[in-house]
């Protein structure tokens, strides 16, 4: 379960980009975070993947207050969180398969242990024939699917995605959404940030709507 208690966040000494956030995401839930550009969706995700600490308030994940974790503990917690970034953050000098294997590699797994898993993941996202291709040779949609495969390959408990359908056509967007639904069916907690409120509402999942850094509404399923 993810718990936000009166969480505020600002960059340096700038204005608050998130204000008094109070909400819970139950284990195994599929939750949307929506809002216009600049509403604070990406900042909220940064707090969730432990890339920043709140300026005020408290965030609990996996039963721990994550605002007081050491650097090593943060690394360990991140292995339980899969993230799909808006800009993919793939490593251009590695192949698609090597990019997907990254979370397993940094966790100390050997190639022989994860090879099959990586191949299976790439097939699952429809890129089984692109394993040895490097990101600069791939389209935006293909990069997005590699990023998704990388986010889920280590079977994390929480999957976060920032505008995962923002740079792909509608057909690909539907396919990508289906991947997240499948992961959620496997028991993973999914938090998906999008500016597309219609997309969020169509699925019938809970929606956290941000406006100017504040939580304006929580649309129940």
């Amino acid at each position, binding site marked *: 379960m993810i718990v936000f208690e009166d969480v505020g966040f600002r960059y340096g000494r700038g204005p608050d980009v998130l204000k008094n956030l109070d909400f819970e995401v139950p284990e195994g839930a599929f939750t949307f975070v929506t809002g216009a550009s600049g509403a604070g969706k990406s900042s909220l995700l940064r707090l969730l993947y432990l890339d920043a600490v709140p300026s005020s308030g408290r965030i609990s994940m996996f039963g721990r207050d994550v605002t007081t974790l050491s650097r090593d503990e943060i*690394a360990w917690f991140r292995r339980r969180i899969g993230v799909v970034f808006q800009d993919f953050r793939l*490593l251009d000098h*590695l192949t698609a398969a090597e990019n997907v294997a*990254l979370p397993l*590699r*940094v*966790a100390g797994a050997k190639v022989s242990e994860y090879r099959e898993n990586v191949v299976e993941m790439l097939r699952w996202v429809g890129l089984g024939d692109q394993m040895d291709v490097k990101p600069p040779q791939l389209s935006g949609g293909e990069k997005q699917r590699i990023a998704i495969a990388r986010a889920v390959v*280590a079977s994390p408990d929480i999957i976060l995605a920032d505008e995962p359908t923002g740079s792909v056509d509608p057909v690909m967007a539907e396919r990508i959404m289906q991947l997240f639904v499948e992961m959620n069916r496997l028991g993973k907690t999914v938090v998906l940030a999008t500016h597309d409120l219609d997309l969020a509402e169509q699925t019938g999942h809970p929606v956290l709507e941000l406006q100017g850094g504040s939580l304006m509404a929580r649309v129940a399923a």
Partner: protein
Amino acid sequence: MRRGALISFQASGGLLMVLIVAAMAFLACFAMAGTLGASKLANAWTEGLSGAATVRIGAEDGVSQDQVDIVLDILRETDGVIEATPLTDEEVAALLEPWFGTTPRLEDLPAPTIIAVRIDPLNEPESAILQARLDGAGAGAIYDDHGEWRGRAASAARAVRNVALGALIICALAIAMVVVLTVRSSLAAQRATIATLRLAGAEDRFVAGVYQTRYLWLGLAGGVIGCAMAGAAMLAVDALASVGRALPALAATGQWWLGPVAVVVFVAVLCVLAARLTVLRALRSGA
């Protein structure tokens, strides 16, 4: 996928690093050889003199056999003196030959009488006490255990050794500084990659491990190249010393190669440690 492949390092940076480490390792080998050579030379000099002393009996008014006998009696009664033998005229002439040549006759020179004394190196007589006894006998004899000369040789060897050690330290510092600078530069260039690794769950020590592995190989490559060149140069010096007998103490011994091997190991360990500490410090300070 090798761990080192996770970060894309520039080949040119690696080559530069290898060349600098090779140059430093080369100098370090010679500094080490200087240290060992100085110690060896000093030992050779002092060992040659230990166990030997001389007594010189003044010659201005001539030296009588009684004077010599008195001195010999004192020496032979002294604890630690194994043997005391006056040099023959021929032996004294041979000692004076480098200064006076062979032309003058010894009788025409006010040459002192020299008594060669063999002493027990483990039980050397106290020179001040022995000199006092010789003075008391009024034989005009001066005891010389070469202590001053040995002291100067040891002090010269110490000075050379300290300079060589200083050079070794400078080489080590230079290598460490090059590692620190190149690692910092790489961390800055690879900021996005390292951030991605961290977001994928990599601990600081994992990232440090990537750099350690790379700098281990760079250090080993540079160390081996530099030490191989130094080893070849040392063999050349050794050949020169053996043939010319100019610097016999610098001639290589059977284990001479241990020095370059030690330098290679030291350089590799230094590179690994400097890389690790630089990465950990940079990551923890938020680089």
